[in-house]
């Protein structure tokens, strides 16, 4: 543990890099999959196509994806953009299905009542369907957040520095403490992100606190899948 005490600065700066690499994919994944998820929920044809494509994208292992992206989008091999784009692809792949499920979980009676009260399609989506789909969206976002945070470190293999640097350097120099500090820092980031998401959920959706049982029922719909390296 001596190593950790002497290198707290390094661990901290790598932690910040890891955070900076993990945030854009989570936010972009959420934003991009909203319209796609709506499309997947709305029409039968788009549902099949979108869910199949996102399922296939989710199947691509992350290391090969990070390696192949420069050849496809023309970035440099060491460019952090590869990692961000790759992780955004996974986030979208996961969230499209989740968003479609979330929108489907809104009670049709509520939607009809909203229409009867004079909501236009656009405002009914934002004022009725989107908030009511919130708990299921949040559940998906929490999975995305955890898997994104832990996948960022794979980028180190192709030279995009993050907490993964501690793994590779610890392996070369045979310092278990260094590797463990990287693992612990990753877990801490994942937990902090999760707490932030839950906090945002409580702030924006105060009704879910009263309606715990409904929330729990939605939580059960979490995707079983998780991406590997």
């Amino acid at each position, binding site marked *: 543990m001596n190593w950790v005490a002497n290198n707290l600065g390094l661990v901290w700066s790598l932690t910040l890099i890891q955070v900076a690499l993990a945030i854009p994919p989570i936010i972009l994944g959420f934003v991009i999959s909203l319209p796609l998820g709506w499309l997947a929920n709305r029409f039968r044809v788009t549902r099949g196509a979108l869910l199949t494509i996102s399922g296939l994208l989710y199947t691509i292992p*992350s*290391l090969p994806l990070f390696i192949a992206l420069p050849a496809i989008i023309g970035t440099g091999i060491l460019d952090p953009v590869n990692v961000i784009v790759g992780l955004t692809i996974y986030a979208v792949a996961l969230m499209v299905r989740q968003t479609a499920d979330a929108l489907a979980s809104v009670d049709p009676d509520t939607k009809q009542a909203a229409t009867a009260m004079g909501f236009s399609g656009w405002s009914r989506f934002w004022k009725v369907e989107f908030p009511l789909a919130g708990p299921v969206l949040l559940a998906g976002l929490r999975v995305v957040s955890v898997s994104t945070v832990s996948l960022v470190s794979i980028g180190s293999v192709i030279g995009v520095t993050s907490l993964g640097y501690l793994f590779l350097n610890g392996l070369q120099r045979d310092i278990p403490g260094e590797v463990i500090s990287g693992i612990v820092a990753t877990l801490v980031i994942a937990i902090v992100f999760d707490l932030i998401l839950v906090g945002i959920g409580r702030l924006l959706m105060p009704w879910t606190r009263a309606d715990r049982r409904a929330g729990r029922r939605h939580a059960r719909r979490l995707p*079983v899948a998780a991406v590997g*390296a």
Partner: protein
Amino acid sequence: MNFILQGIDWIFDPARWSGPGDMQSRILEQLAYTFGAVAIAAIIAIPLGLLIGHTGKGRDLAVSLSGGLRALPSLGLLIIFALLIGIGFKAPLLAFVILAIPPVLSGAYAGIEAVDKRTVDAARAMGMTEWQVLTKVEVPLGAPLIVAGIRSGILQVVATATLAYFASGGALGVYINDGLATRNYVELLGASIVVTALALILEGIFALAQRLIVPRGVTAGQVKDVRSRPVRSRATVGSPIQEGK
């Protein structure tokens, strides 16, 4: 796109498929890790998942455990095992078992939980023992989700097995290691295409297997319209349903 064609050429170079450490043996190593790790994970996680799903006890613990394991960075896990128990195939295998447990476990308990509680109560009312309820009602009806859990475990390990080379454990990552060391992008890309193809093929096989394994009675009762949702009342396990109160 030019690079991708070169990568494909690299894969089909005859030299790749002969001699020691050829492509066949790398692919076999990758598959051995995958099925080995998932088999061990299934032996541990499926009975546990069935127990949790059947009794409803320890569910919260299982949820947070599988969530927490999911946050573990696979690379770090593999490397720490390599440092602690030495290089070879054991360290990666152990890491992959740990990676495969969360999806298999959550598939198993979610599968049992998803079974309509009225069906379970009916089975019990017909005089089935708890063991019969589990093996003759809950497992067949929960099979789709149980298999889905195994499928996502396999998918995760077949992808992550690429990292086994960090513990000198062979598999397809060896090419990635070579490519990185010699700055050979074509080799990196070729190996990436092979790993991806392997993952897609396994996914395809399992999607098919999942369809075949589901009992006909289950699909017959399924709602065809994905947008409508059955309203299902949940009876508590082990206590009488309080109707009309």
